[in-house]
C-alpha cells in the first residue's frame, strides 16, 4: 500500500444522512471500536420523522434537514474549538414523492451543507457523490478515468452533477472539501430494494439483458467507508474527487452468478437463472424512464431496468495512488456478508 500523509482525527465528526443506508454503516463504524473508531464525538443529522433507533447510542442525533438551512446551524452547537470534519452522505436516489426531491435534496441540500460547513469553519468536508454525473462508458472495455467530463444520467445524475458543482464552488470560496464517487454499493444495512435483488437471484428470476456482458463497478460498503475516511484524513488538495469501488468491475453475468454462489454457500436453494431479455427491453425501459421523469414522475423499476444494459466501470488507480485506498473485500465475500446481515435481521429472502 502506498504511503500517504494523514491528519489527526477531528474532535467532532458530523455525518449528514446518518440514518440512511450508507450513513448507518458509516456512523456505526466511526462510533465503534473497529479500525475506523475514533475518540472524538460523532454527530448525525437525521430528519425529524426519521427512525434512528437502529443507530448506536453513542451517536449524538441532531434533528434537521439539508433542505432547511437554519436547521443545519444546530449541527455545530456546542462543539467547541477543536477541528470538525463533515461527511455529507445525505441524498435521494429513488424519490418517493416527486422528482423535485432530486434538486431540493441532492443539489440545493448540498449547497446548504457546504455553506454551513464554511460558516462554521469545518476543517475537511467529504461529499459523497456518484457515478451518475458521468453517465456510462461507450464501450465495455472503457474505464472511467478519475477526471471525466460530466454527462449526467437523467434526473438523479443531473442533481448529483449540480451537487458536485456546488461543492467545487464552495472550494472556490475557501472550503476544504473533497468528493468520493462510489458506483452501485452493497452490503449490510442495505435497503429493501436490494433484498429484492437477492430474492430474484434465488428464484432464478433476475432479468439479464442481452448477453449479460455489461460491465459494472460496484462498491462493498466497508470499502466505501475506507475510501471516505481516507478522503477525510489524507492530506490532499481541496476540490479533488475519486472513484471508490471494488478493485475490478464485474460483468452482470458474474454478479448474478456470484450472488447465486453466495446464497448457496449460506444454505439457500438457488434456481438456475434463465431470465434473459433482449437488449431492447433496456432501451425501452430507459425511454419510459426518461419520459416519465420529464413528466415529473419517477418509477423505480423502469429506472433500474433502463440502467441494466449500461456499462459503468471505473478505474480506481487515482484513489490508490493519492489516498492509499486498497479495497479489501470483493464481490463474493461482500455478498455473503450482506446475506448474513439480512438473515440476522430476520429479513426473508
Amino acid at each position: 500500500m502506498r504511503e500517504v500523509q494523514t491528519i489527526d482525527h477531528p474532535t467532532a465528526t458530523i455525518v449528514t444522512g446518518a440514518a440512511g443506508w450508507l450513513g448507518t454503516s458509516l456512523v456505526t463504524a466511526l462510533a465503534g471500536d473497529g479500525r475506523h473508531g475514533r475518540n472524538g464525538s460523532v454527530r448525525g443529522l437525521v430528519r425529524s420523522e426519521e427512525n434512528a433507533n437502529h443507530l448506536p447510542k453513542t451517536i449524538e442525533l441532531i434533528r434537521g434537514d439539508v433542505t432547511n438551512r437554519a436547521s443545519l446551524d444546530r449541527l455545530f452547537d456546542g462543539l467547541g474549538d477543536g477541528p470538525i470534519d463533515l461527511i455529507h452522505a445525505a441524498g435521494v436516489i429513488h424519490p418517493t414523492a416527486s422528482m423535485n426531491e432530486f434538486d431540493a435534496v441532492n443539489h440545493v441540500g448540498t449547497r446548504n451543507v457546504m455553506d454551513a460547513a464554511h460558516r462554521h469553519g469545518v476543517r475537511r468536508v467529504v461529499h459523497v457523490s456518484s457515478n451518475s454525473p458521468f453517465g456510462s462508458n461507450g464501450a465495455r472495455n472503457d474505464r472511467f478515468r478519475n477526471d471525466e467530463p460530466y454527462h449526467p444520467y437523467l434526473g438523479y445524475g443531473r442533481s448529483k452533477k449540480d451537487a458536485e458543482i456546488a461543492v467545487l464552488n464552495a472550494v472556490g470560496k475557501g472550503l476544504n472539501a473533497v468528493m468520493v464517487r462510489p458506483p452501485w454499493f452493497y452490503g449490510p444495512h442495505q435497503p429493501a430494494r436490494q433484498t429484492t435483488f437477492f430474492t430474484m437471484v434465488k428464484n432464478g428470476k433476475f432479468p439479464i439483458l442481452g448477453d449479460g456482458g455489461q460491465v459494472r463497478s460496484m462498491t462493498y460498503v466497508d470499502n466505501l467507508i475506507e475510501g471516505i475516511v481516507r478522503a477525510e484524513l489524507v492530506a490532499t488538495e481541496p476540490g479533488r474527487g475519486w472513484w471508490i469501488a471494488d478493485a475490478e468491475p464485474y460483468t452482470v453475468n458474474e454478479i448474478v452468478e456470484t450472488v447465486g454462489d453466495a446464497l448457496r454457500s449460506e444454505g439457500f436453494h438457488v434456481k438456475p437463472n434463465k431470465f434473459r431479455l433482449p437488449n431492447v427491453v433496456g432501451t425501452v425501459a430507459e425511454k419510459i424512464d426518461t419520459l416519465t421523469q420529464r413528466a415529473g414522475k419517477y418509477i423505480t423499476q423502469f429506472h433500474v431496468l433502463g440502467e441494466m444494459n449500461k456499462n459503468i466501470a471505473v478505474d480506481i488507480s487515482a484513489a490508490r495512488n493519492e489516498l492509499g485506498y486498497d479495497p479489501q473485500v470483493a464481490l463474493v465475500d461482500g455478498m455473503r456478508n450482506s446475506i448474513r446481515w439480512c438473515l440476522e435481521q430476520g429479513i426473508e429472502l
Partner: protein
Amino acid sequence: MTVHHDCDVLIVGSGAGGATTAAVLAEAGHHVLIVEEGPWVEQGSVVPFSLDQMDQQYRSGGVTVALGMPSIAYTEGRCAGGGTEVNSGLYWRPPEATLDSWRIKYRIKDFSTDDVLSICEEVESTLSVQKVPGEHTPASDILRRGADRLGWKNDEIPRWMTYRDGAGATEGHRQSMTRTYLPRALAAGARILCEHRLNKIVRSGRRAVSAELTDMTAATDGQNAVTISFRDVIVCGGAIQTPAILQRTGLRHRVGRTLAVHPTVKLAARFDDVVNTPDDVSVFQVKEFAPNISFGGSASHPGLVALALTDNWRDFGSAVTSWPELAIYYAAITSEGRGLVQVVPGVRDPLVTYRLTKRDRDLLGQGLGRLAMVMLEAGAKEVYPSFKGAPVVRDRADLAAMTTMFAVARASVMTVHLCSTAPMGDDDKRCATDSHGLVRGTDNVFVNDAALLPEAPGVNPQASVMAIAIRNARRYCADRAG
C-alpha cells in the same frame, strides 16, 4: 482517334499502394505503366491543408459523403501520390496485436508480424520517418499540455519528413510518393500517365486483357480515348475507387461490402494567444483511450475554421474573426460499424453508405466530451463543438450541457482513413482477394492498396498500406519473372 499503350503490368493509381508497387515491380525489371486520374502537383506549389489544395489534389474538391444516419463526410486524394500528398504525414506502424488478429481471423498466409514490421523499418528509412527536431506548433503543445494535466497518455507521432538540424515542426519537407517511390519507379523505367481516368477493364473469362481510359488533358472529346493492353493489372485506387473499378469489371465477391473507417467528430477551441498554424497539424495524439478513442489535431486553415463553426453559425459565427486564436481538433474512434461501396450504372461516383452502431455513437459522444475537457485543461477560453445546436463550452458545467445535448445525428462526422473494401486472406467467406491480393475468380487482377486491410487499423493507416503493398509486390515478383 485512340491512343494505345502496351505494358507488362498496368497499375491503376499512384498513392501509398500504387507508388510502392510500381517501384518494386519496375526495379525487378517489369515493364510498368501507372495511370493516375489526378494531376502531378509539385510539393510546395500549393499551400498544405488549404482550400486551394482541396480543389487541386482531392476528389470532388475535397469532400464526398457516405450516406447514413448520420452521413459521414470523407476525403480522397486525387493526384499523383494520392493521399500521401495531402495527409498529415503522421506515421504509425500497424500495432502487432492488430497484425496477429488479422492473420488468424482472415487466414492470411505468410503474414508473419515480424516480416511486416521489418518492411516497416525499410519504409521508415526510405521516408526518413522521424520526430520534429526543433519547436512544436502551439496546436501540438495544447494537446500535450491538456493531456498531461489530466494524466492521459499522449505521444508525439513521428512523420515522414526531412528537417535541417534543429528545424521546427513547420519546416519539414514531406517525403510523399512524388518525392520517393514514384521517382524510384520512373528511374527504373516505369511510366506514368497523369490525368487519365480509367473507365473500364475488359475481361475475357478469368483474365483481364485491356483497359479503356479517358485522357482528361485532351482538347476535344473525340481525341481523348486511350486503351492499354497488359499482362496483369494491379488496382490501387484507394478504398472507394478500387471496389468501384472491380465491380464495374464484374468482380463482386466480397468487394465493397466491408468498408471500414475511423469516424471522427470535431471541435474548435479558442485560446488567449495566437495558436493557429494554417499550414500544419498537431503531431501529438492522445492515446489514453486507444484503441477505442484517439484525439489529434486537424487542419485549421481559416476556411476550415469557418467550416468547423458552421454547425451552429448563429452562435459560433462571430468567432471566425479571431481564427488565429482558434485550432481544430478531432476525436476518432475505431468503429464496429461497416459500410458499402456500390457502383450505380450510369453514375461515375459509387454510392457509399456507412452505418454506425450504438457503441460507435456512444463512443463518439464520449470522445467529444473528453476532447473538450483536454481543451479546457490546456487553457481554452471557449470550445465550439461541431454539432448542430451545440453550446459554447467555457467550463465543466457547460461541458455537462454539451454532453447532454450531443447526438451523433446532429454532428458533422467525417473520416479520412478508409479501408477494407477488398479484404485479403484465404478465408473466402470474408475476403475478396487471396492472401497476396489476387482477386478471387481471376488469374491476373490484383488489388494492392488500403482496400486489402481487413479492418481499420486504429492508427494512421499509411504505414500499414505501404508495408502490405511492398510485401505483396515482392511476392508478385517472386512468382513472375520480369
